[in-house]
């Protein structure tokens, strides 16, 4: 515990950036929760008189082609973007943990089958596989999440598998097994709690990637439909106005994406430093 405290002091003290990331993420989470009441305008309200207005006091991020306030849309979109990413990351975390634990604990044919399936997923360029999954399952937000879960699954599964594999041979686990415990209680009470912290690092490192994936899918028109505010689709809608120089239409939602991903990456790095200072690069 003492070393943990020291590492925390290091991660937050010497690395101020982690702290900044935590603060910004907290703000984004606030936007995600209270978005609609924080937004100055209705994100769906069009205004024919105020189309493509550059950033101003009334519209700090300007307005889009239909006269909707971009700031409001960016704020409200946080819920959907973070929601998709968090849901995907958590589901693949749980699924990957379960599959990896089974593979690592039992070995033998469950291990071979699970590992083979994960290898097969990894044989695809992952974004391409996600496109294929959404196309097959149908174009909806739910299916974008499902696709993101599937392409994230191998990372968690392999990680959990190797951690469980190492731990199943350890003294206290052996003892628990000798004591007549069956597989499930041993896994749940003795092994899983110990691999949760490193898995959490994996979650926060993967979170940014999950956001990028979901946003990429909506950028090409999968999942989210207009007029729903979502960062990826807003960037895509704003793209048509680059040639005429209305930069604010795509820069602000894009910047929101960058900020979110950047902070999750920083947080992941910080957490890793905290739990495992040796692996720092």
């Amino acid at each position, binding site marked *: 515990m003492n070393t943990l405290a020291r590492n925390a002091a290091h991660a937050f003290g010497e690395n101020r950036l982690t702290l900044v990331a935590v603060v910004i993420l907290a703000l984004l989470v606030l936007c995600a929760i209270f978005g609609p009441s924080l937004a100055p305008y209705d994100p769906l309200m069009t205004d024919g008189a105020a189309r493509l207005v550059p950033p101003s006091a009334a519209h700090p991020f300007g307005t889009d082609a239909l006269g909707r306030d971009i700031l409001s849309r960016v704020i409200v979109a946080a819920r959907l973007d973070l929601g998709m990413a968090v849901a995907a990351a958590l589901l693949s975390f749980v699924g990957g943990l379960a599959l990896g634990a089974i593979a690592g604990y039992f070995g033998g044919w469950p291990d071979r089958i699970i590992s083979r399936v994960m290898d097969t997923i990894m*044989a*695809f*360029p992952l*974004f391409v596989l996600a496109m294929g999954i959404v196309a097959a399952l149908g174009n909806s937000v739910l299916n974008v999440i499902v696709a993101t879960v599937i392409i994230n699954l191998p990372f968690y599964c392999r990680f959990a598998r190797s951690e469980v594999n190492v731990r199943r041979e350890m003294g206290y686990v052996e003892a628990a097994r000798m004591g007549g415990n069956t597989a499930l209680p041993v896994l749940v009470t003795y092994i899983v709690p110990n691999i949760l912290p490193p898995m959490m690092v994996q979650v926060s490192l993967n979170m940014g990637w999950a956001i990028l994936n979901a946003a990429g899918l909506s*950028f090409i028109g999968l999942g989210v439909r207009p007029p729903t505010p979502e960062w990826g689709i807003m960037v895509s809608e704003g793209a048509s106005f680059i040639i005429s120089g209305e930069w604010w239409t795509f820069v602000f939602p894009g910047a929101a994406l960058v900020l979110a*991903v950047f902070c999750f990456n*920083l947080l992941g790095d910080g957490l890793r430093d905290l739990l495992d200072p040796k692996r720092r*690069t």
Partner: protein
Amino acid sequence: MHFFWKRLLGTIPSLIGVVLVTFLLSHALPGDPAAYFAGPAANATSIAEVRAKLGLDRSLPVQFLHYADDLRQGNLGNSLTTGQPVLSDLIERLPASIELTFFALAFAVVAALPLGVWAATRPDSIVDHSCRALVSIGAAFPTFFIGLLFVYLFYFLFDIAPQPLGRLNEILYTAPPRITGAYTIDSILAGEWGVLRASLAQLILPSVSLGMFALAPIARITRAAMLQALGSDFIRTARASGLPTRKILINYAFRNALLPVTNVLGMVFSFLLGGSVLIEQVYGWQGVGAYAVTAVISSDYAAVQGFVLTMAFLYVMLNLVIDLLATAIDPRVRFES
């Protein structure tokens, strides 16, 4: 050379897995595949027709055998949007995508390797910190956003890049006679230097924006691997033997650092092949990615399936190349296999 065949054989399980997954995606999902294949405009009779034609009324294993047999004959079905066989559609567009991906990779490698090496030789210096900052920032930018930012900056604001309207400004130039399908190569083969210049000009922004995302992992791993190599015992030996710094850096440290770098290349190609879909969309690039996006949006399922299959096949082959590269770099890998 017998390990070459071993590695080649090693790709077979991956390829079988890939075919199985694409089959499952199209045939075994909830919903009616026949309706997908028939397209959005289909009615009940045309769906039934499609069902019979595709053999979807038979058992799954039988369907799979048919599917595999079609693949063997190069039959990926017909595209609903272009009306052409999917295979010929893909073959027509693939060179454009490969050209783009190749240039992106080249940019990423050429920029990231020296950056990582430079940062590693001066730990904690300004170079090192800028490298790390660039790596974290680069990893946070969505590919499509970088692409759009570049268009805005270099085309609209500074006006130094051509309009992002695909592979060639077709008003001023005509595409070179098709030999490989890659405009840069074909224009060289045809000796059309103006076309070469024009197609390179169109290539720069998309490949740099696509390469940016790959730059981060390569630079990061190069830096880490170089730091590790430079701190290892054999570097100390080399210095104690009076070898010149340049030789130590290149022949000793860098060549050892290359192995971890080749190991991330698999991930990098996954990024690049996925990212190329987005970049093609941004720059109006007429490659397989743009084709697939149109297909996905219009539920042109045979086309999407063909695209996924092609990209996966390409990826498996790239991983094979990476594997072979690793064995060429490190004798220990050859020994283990």
